[in-house]
């Protein structure tokens, strides 16, 4: 192993760009995961047996789709979704293109985390809201979401951390990003300097996300 500071300084612009690409991909995937995963997670929860919008068909169909996507290895999803990617963003290469499969993978992942957070709510609280005559929408807005808020924030943290790892595979479609940089330089070219640097960046990045996520989750809990 060798660490060459001169080499590192030369590559700072490249590292910088990769880092921004990672942020770009993660931000898009996270936003999409929240927009679609949150309602899906809520829907899976409230249509379950014994809940206030119990509906076996909706529950099972959603559960099946979520499980199906989650069981496909990401690298396969990445390739399989190329037509969809092309249709949605008009390109199959680069960070923008990589955001599509990342988003598709993140939706069911986050939806399950939302569902888990909702399951932790004391059922008595939901029941009290039903007894008080609350509408389903009121119960979602004023009971489920506030009570699961802290858990959902933890879910966001877990999703981001998981995306940091998954996005490293985006290199397959030229997505770039810091993980891709580590693979290209560190793994294929035996460039220890870049490998060590990128790995350190990733470690610090993930620690930071977790730290901030935990802080927020705790701060919002009354």
């Amino acid at each position, binding site marked *: 192993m060798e660490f060459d500071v001169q080499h590192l300084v030369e590559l700072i612009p490249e590292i910088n760009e990769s880092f921004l690409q990672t942020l770009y991909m993660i931000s898009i995937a996270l936003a999409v995961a929240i927009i679609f995963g949150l309602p899906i997670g809520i829907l899976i929860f409230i249509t379950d047996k014994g809940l206030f919008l119990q509906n076996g068909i909706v529950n099972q169909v959603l559960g099946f789709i979520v499980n199906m996507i989650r069981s496909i290895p990401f690298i396969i999803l990445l390739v399989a979704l190329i037509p969809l990617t092309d249709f949605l963003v008009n390109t199959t290469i680069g960070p923008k293109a990589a955001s599509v499969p990342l988003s598709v993978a993140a939706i069911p992942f986050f939806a399950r985390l939302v569902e888990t957070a909702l399951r932790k709510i004391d059922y008595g609280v939901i029941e009290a809201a039903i007894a*008080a*005559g*609350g509408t389903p929408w009121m119960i979602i807005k*004023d009971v489920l979401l506030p009570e699961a808020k802290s858990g959902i924030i933890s879910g966001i943290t877990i999703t981001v951390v998981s995306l940091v790892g998954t996005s490293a595979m985006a290199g397959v479609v030229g997505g770039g990003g810091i993980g891709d940089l580590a693979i290209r330089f560190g793994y294929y070219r035996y460039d220890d300097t870049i490998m060590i640097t990128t790995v350190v960046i990733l470690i610090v990045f993930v620690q930071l996300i977790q730290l901030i996520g935990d802080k927020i989750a705790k701060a919002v809990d009354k």
Partner: protein
Amino acid sequence: MINIHNLSKIYLTKKGKVKGVDNVSLTINEGEIYGIVGYSGAGKSSLVRCINLLERPTSGIITVDGVDLTTLKSEELRQARLKIGMIFQHFNLVSQKTVFENIAFSLKAAKVPANKINDRVEELLVMVGLSDKRDVFPGQLSGGQKQRVGIARALANNPKVLLCDEATSALDPTTTKSILKLLKKINSELNITIVLITHEMDVVKEVCHRMAIMQNGKVVENGNVYDIFASPNKELTKEFIESVISFELPDAILEKVTGTLVKVVFKGDVAGESVVSDTVQKFAVKGNFLHGSIDYIQDAPLGIFVMELTGDRAEIKEALKYIEERTAHVEVIRHGV
């Protein structure tokens, strides 16, 4: 106000069918506080939850204010629930919302205009004595205060009925008293019919007008609380009464008793001692008081004495007949030797 007719609730579980409520019929009148007592698992919660349809009855009919809730569509059922308040053992407040928001939930459910919600919540907070806790989160409240918020939430839309499922079971005795006092006030001032479920006979004795005792999903005895305390028919009822009014005698005393051991119950203002002294004069028997107390079922006195009668067997029989005529209830605990 609430009519329960041949109600059964059967739960289908992995281990088979469980009877929660087994063919219960009860009538709960408007304006009364009705107590339902029983040990854990007796079916009290199942019964009360059928009233606002948190559980769907398997068979039988329940009407609340003349309406059979099982016939309502979901929106109508929601409207009906606005008029049936409910409070719970563990309060079930939304922990991430303030006291104000918890109470406002009920008002929003009733589509009360936003500009009226504030005043109504303030009014409710005054009623339950929590005006200074308006913007506090439930986590910062004591158990009794949480239950007061629960009560305010349940009463927000002026319901006709308030269902209480073990509402004081998680509270200490002093707090229990204060919550019961509040329920009594709500009942008398607002004329709200209260159905109160508990495993504590104290609670019934303190506030209920009429009561039912449940076991294995069935009502074993029901009636006026005072009458049930004065002359319980079923073993289970006696057991519950003895949990609050004890006439247990020490073994050392019991061993010395050779005469007939009787328990005499005096109702209202009948002077117990005078009946006994008359008896002793009229008949050739001797009376010996072993235990005596006057309890108050709400405001009505109920005297219970345990005494030993000695004398000729035939005389004792006559004496008992005489006491029986003049008191509420005489029971021979043990015959003389």
